[in-house]
């Protein structure tokens, strides 16, 4: 690894390394060039030299120290968390992973991700508390992977003064992190346990739904999540393509429960004859839209397909424009056929299957007021069977009906 050419003297950086090692009892390393844009030098904890148990029990308050080109020396902690991970515990997905950088947004997201907002507030509170006590400038960076950072103006300081200030700030940062960790292990853990308890019933039910759907369609399903505030969705399940057996029944592709009821959607019938992920995603790239499709809400997810390369690696291969044109052949299903099959199936299965207004997608919904979970699951199963049968019939009718213009 190429080391950076330090404007500061190498002896001084080594002294910083030794100082941090003496404070924390852990090894530090000097940053490589590629890792140090905008900084004169950086020293950070060397996890490679730590045993697994040391890594897990590490106080991460002083992960690194760096000097900026403006003469500011910063001491920063390791990331407190990854907001996408914590949000995932609540089935929520941040479209903008840095949205919490603006404190004004915290209140809006509290209802969706209470434990995450609580931890950010605690970290900021601890920072403010220590700032008052020690006259420091600890700040919380609350973007995708939040961390604490303190800094001081080192211009005009000699090496001894700089080292003294680094030591003072590093020790305070260790205190800060210790207090955040203490909260995480006590109050935070209790919040998590409560959340887990309240979610357990839903997770069990969702798993039951997934298992029933798999039995009906042979497709694979996973949990979905909310991407908008106050969406009202209590839980959702989305289909995903199993690479080994792509040609499964996708009559049921998205299920969601709200306070009012449960809605079940099929996949887009334009994809009904796709033989593999390349064809399937190419159809999506060429404009095929799936109702309520979780994937469609994830940027770029259709711009590649899974493959294995010459080294045997699982690889996400980008789909070129040419490939999208070549493989993105939609199956054109006449709206009349969809309507007819929906009517037929509705009659046979005694459910109301509808064609969505603007998409070649079938859906059915029912109200859940007064229903017990077992009753809801049975109703989902009954309707899923109807949608799966509709998929099978339309598949039979659609053979050879590919869009030659695509």
């Amino acid at each position, binding site marked *: 690894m190429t080391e950076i050419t330090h404007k500061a003297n190498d002896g001084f950086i080594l002294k910083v390394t030794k100082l941090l090692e003496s404070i924390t009892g852990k090894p530090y390393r000097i940053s490589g060039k590629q890792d140090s844009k905008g900084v004169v030098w950086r020293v950070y904890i060397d*996890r490679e030299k730590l045993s697994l148990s040391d890594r897990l029990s590490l106080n991460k308050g002083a*992960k690194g120290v760096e000097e900026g080109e403006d003469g500011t020396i910063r001491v920063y902690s390791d990331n407190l968390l990854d907001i996408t991970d914590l949000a995932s515990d609540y089935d929520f997905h941040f479209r903008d992973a840095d949205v919490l950088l603006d404190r004004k947004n915290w209140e809006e997201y509290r209802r969706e991700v209470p434990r995450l907002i609580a931890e950010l507030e605690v970290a900021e509170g601890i920072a403010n508390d220590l700032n008052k006590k020690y006259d420091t400038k600890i700040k919380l960076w609350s973007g995708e992977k939040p961390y604490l950072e303190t800094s001081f103006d080192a211009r005009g300081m000699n090496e001894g003064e700089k080292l003294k200030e680094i030591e003072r700030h590093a020790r305070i940062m260790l205190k800060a992190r210790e207090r955040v960790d203490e909260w995480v292990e006590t109050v935070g853990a209790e919040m998590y346990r409560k959340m887990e308890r309240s979610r357990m019933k839903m997770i069990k039910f969702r*798993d039951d739904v997934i298992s029933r759907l798999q039995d009906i369609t042979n497709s*694979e399903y*996973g*949990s979905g999540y909310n991407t908008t505030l106050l969406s009202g969705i209590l839980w959702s399940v989305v289909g995903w393509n199993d690479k080994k057996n792509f040609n499964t029944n996708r009559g049921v592709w998205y299920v969601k429960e709200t306070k009012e009821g449960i809605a079940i959607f099929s996949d887009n019938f334009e994809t009904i004859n796709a033989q593999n992920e390349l064809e399937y995603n190419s159809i999506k790239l060429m404009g095929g*839209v799936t109702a309520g499709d979780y*994937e469609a809400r994830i940027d770029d997810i259709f711009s590649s397909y899974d493959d294995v390369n010459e080294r045997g690696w699982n690889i996400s291969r980008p789909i070129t424009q040419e490939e999208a044109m070549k493989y993105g052949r939609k199956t054109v299903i006449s709206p009349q056929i969809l309507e007819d099959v929906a009517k037929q199936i509705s009659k046979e299965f005694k459910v109301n299957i509808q064609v969505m207004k603007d998409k070649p997608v079938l859906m059915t919904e029912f109200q859940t007021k007064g229903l017990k979970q077992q009753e809801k699951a049975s109703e989902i199963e009954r309707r899923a069977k109807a949608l799966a049968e509709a998929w099978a019939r339309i598949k039979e009718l659609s053979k050879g009906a590919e869009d030659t213009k695509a």
Partner: protein
Amino acid sequence: MGEIGAEVAAKIAEKEYNVKVILSGSKTGPDSIITLNNELAVFEAKSSKNMSELVRNFRDAEKQVKRRDKAGIAVSVYIEKETGFFECKHKYVPGSSSKVNRYEGEEP
């Protein structure tokens, strides 16, 4: 992600892609910077306690790699704390790709 999950994910990447995963020294950015095919790449990992979240997290990890505008490895692990049983998904995500415009669907 949970630290145990991160360690497991790192081991998986090291074994499957012959890389050394070391924590990045930076404050922001990927979980780790790695050297892959003699080039700098990123490592993003997710772990979950529910099997049904494995795929969703895998997509998140892939998305995080793509957001870095660099090649990288995305790993998602499901770990059963009580038994130590784990399931994982991983893939190599190449760097910048040619992007094709597409119409984005709406929630019904």
